[in-house]
């Protein structure tokens, strides 16, 4: 399968099954479009009014050479392979710990419903957290790198437990020959020097929630009393990012129907000095006034194009920053097994509630149909695990025909469930945006190859 498109003056050809990316001239672009359903002679006949015949023959030879080397029109031979991958024993390697089902903000779009996840307010105790780490170690098989995200609600509302669990993890990793990678996701309200110092020492990554421009952030991310949070968090986040040498963190925002011009928010965050930025579309029900709608897509596509172009320009000017959804690792990216099998929710990645219940991921927390067990007694509902395990790009009809399938791995199971009541489907608006982001990310790589 080949996906070809034009973006920012580049003719880009993606060979989906090998991951090879080619930048081609207009002639070759037109030849490739005809390649699979047209004979060589007919290609020459159809194009010789526009292009020189000798040049067409040259392009054909170059295409044949790439095809011979497995860099173009590569067949998809992975479907049987994924069967072998999914038969392997399941290990757990990552936990999202809901340290606090409570929050000091009242964000309008929060899937956790102001931190409470359709349930009661609660803080995770040290005993529950400790049992969660024990559960992770016990179920991690021979995986050495184990990930624990301190999540919420707002985890700084229960920070002593975070500190104690990190200490426990550091002690246990030596005993069991594991390597814990801790991350913290915070809204920044309670950030102080003590938390920053601790996080800089212990957290592999920190995710700092902010939506962008003051008016955008304050509309969606107010305190419970209605006041905006921007002025409280921005100076703290700037200090925090600098104290981490502008590495191993993301400022992370959500854009909605109310700020379809979200590229301005990304650039605003860049202008505030942040170098690691992630801003992604809200996932909401159609009835929510802030939900992204299908008719918003053309504007959002234009926004991604404009942002990508601006990023190329800023890089040339020495003012580069990273945008998470345009990052793509071409030379050291994931293997096919990872690309086919998705995010690992419900199998190698689980969420833990403050009282120790296990769910497939943070987005399923509170939906009793997905309660899988708890950290004290272990996984009870192996049928849920097996259902998630069978979820891959070949189990979803729409992914089979999609050029982006090796970049999103079939998309988010929770999004699929929320829109179709089935984890083996796809969230169409999310897919459209994901495809656009992949196209932009590749264009940026093409432009960078020229710099």
């Amino acid at each position: 399968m080949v996906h070809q498109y034009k973006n920012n003056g580049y003719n880009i050809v993606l060979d989906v099954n090998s991951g090879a990316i080619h930048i081609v001239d207009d002639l070759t672009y037109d030849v490739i479009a005809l390649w699979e359903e047209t004979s060589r002679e007919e290609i020459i006949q159809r194009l010789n009014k526009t292009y020189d015949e000798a040049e067409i023959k040259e392009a054909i030879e170059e295409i044949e050479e790439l095809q011979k080397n497995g860099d173009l029109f590569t067949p998809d031979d992975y479907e049987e392979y994924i069967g072998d991958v999914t038969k392997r024993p399941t290990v757990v390697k990552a936990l999202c710990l809901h340290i606090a089902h409570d929050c000091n903000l009242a964000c309008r779009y929060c899937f956790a419903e102001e931190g409470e996840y359709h349930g009661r307010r609660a803080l995770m105790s040290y005993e529950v957290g400790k049992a969660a780490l024990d559960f992770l170690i016990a179920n991690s098989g021979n995986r050495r790198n184990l990930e624990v995200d301190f999540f919420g609600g707002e985890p700084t509302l229960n920070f002593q437990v975070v500190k104690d669990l990190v200490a426990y993890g550091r002690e246990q990793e030596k005993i069991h020959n594991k390597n814990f990678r801790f991350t913290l996701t915070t809204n920044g309200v309670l950030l102080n020097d003590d938390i920053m110092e601790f996080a800089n020492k212990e957290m592999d990554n920190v995710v700092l929630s902010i939506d962008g421009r003051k008016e955008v952030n304050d509309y969606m991310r107010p305190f419970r009393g209605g006041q905006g949070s921007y002025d409280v968090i921005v100076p703290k986040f700037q200090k925090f990012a600098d104290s981490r040498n502008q590495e191993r963190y993301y400022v992370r925002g959500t854009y909605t129907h109310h700020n379809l011009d979200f590229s301005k928010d990304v650039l605003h965050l860049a202008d505030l000095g942040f170098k690691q930025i992630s801003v992604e579309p809200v996932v909401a029900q159609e009835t929510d006034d802030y939900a992204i709608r299908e008719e918003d897509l053309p504007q959002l596509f234009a926004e991604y194009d404009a942002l990508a172009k601006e990023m190329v320009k800023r890089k040339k000017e020495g003012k580069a920053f990273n945008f998470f959804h345009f990052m793509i690792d071409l030379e050291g990216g994931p293997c096919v097994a990872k690309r086919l099998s998705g995010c690992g929710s419900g199998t190698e990645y689980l969420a833990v509630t403050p009282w120790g219940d296990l769910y497939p991921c943070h987005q399923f927390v509170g939906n009793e149909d997905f309660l899988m067990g708890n950290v004290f007694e272990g996984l009870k509902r192996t049928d849920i695990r097996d259902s998630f395990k069978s979820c891959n790009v070949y189990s979803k009809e729409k992914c089979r025909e999609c050029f982006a399938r090796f970049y999103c791995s079939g998309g988010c199971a929770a999004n699929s469930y929320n829109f179709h009541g089935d984890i083996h489907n796809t969230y169409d608006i999310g897919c459209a945006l994901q495809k656009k982001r992949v196209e932009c990310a590749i264009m940026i790589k093409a432009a960078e190859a020229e710099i």
Partner: protein
Amino acid sequence: MKHIKTLNTRKLQNTVKKGGCGECQTSCQSACKTSCTVGNQTCEHCK
């Protein structure tokens, strides 16, 4: 090549035999909590 410039990429076919060790980062642990972004993850063996 005269008409085609190829970017350096890791050939996916070549990752079949040795891939799948599972040591790499879980995508939702990085910066997306509501989408699935895998293509930007780095292979633990390529670091």
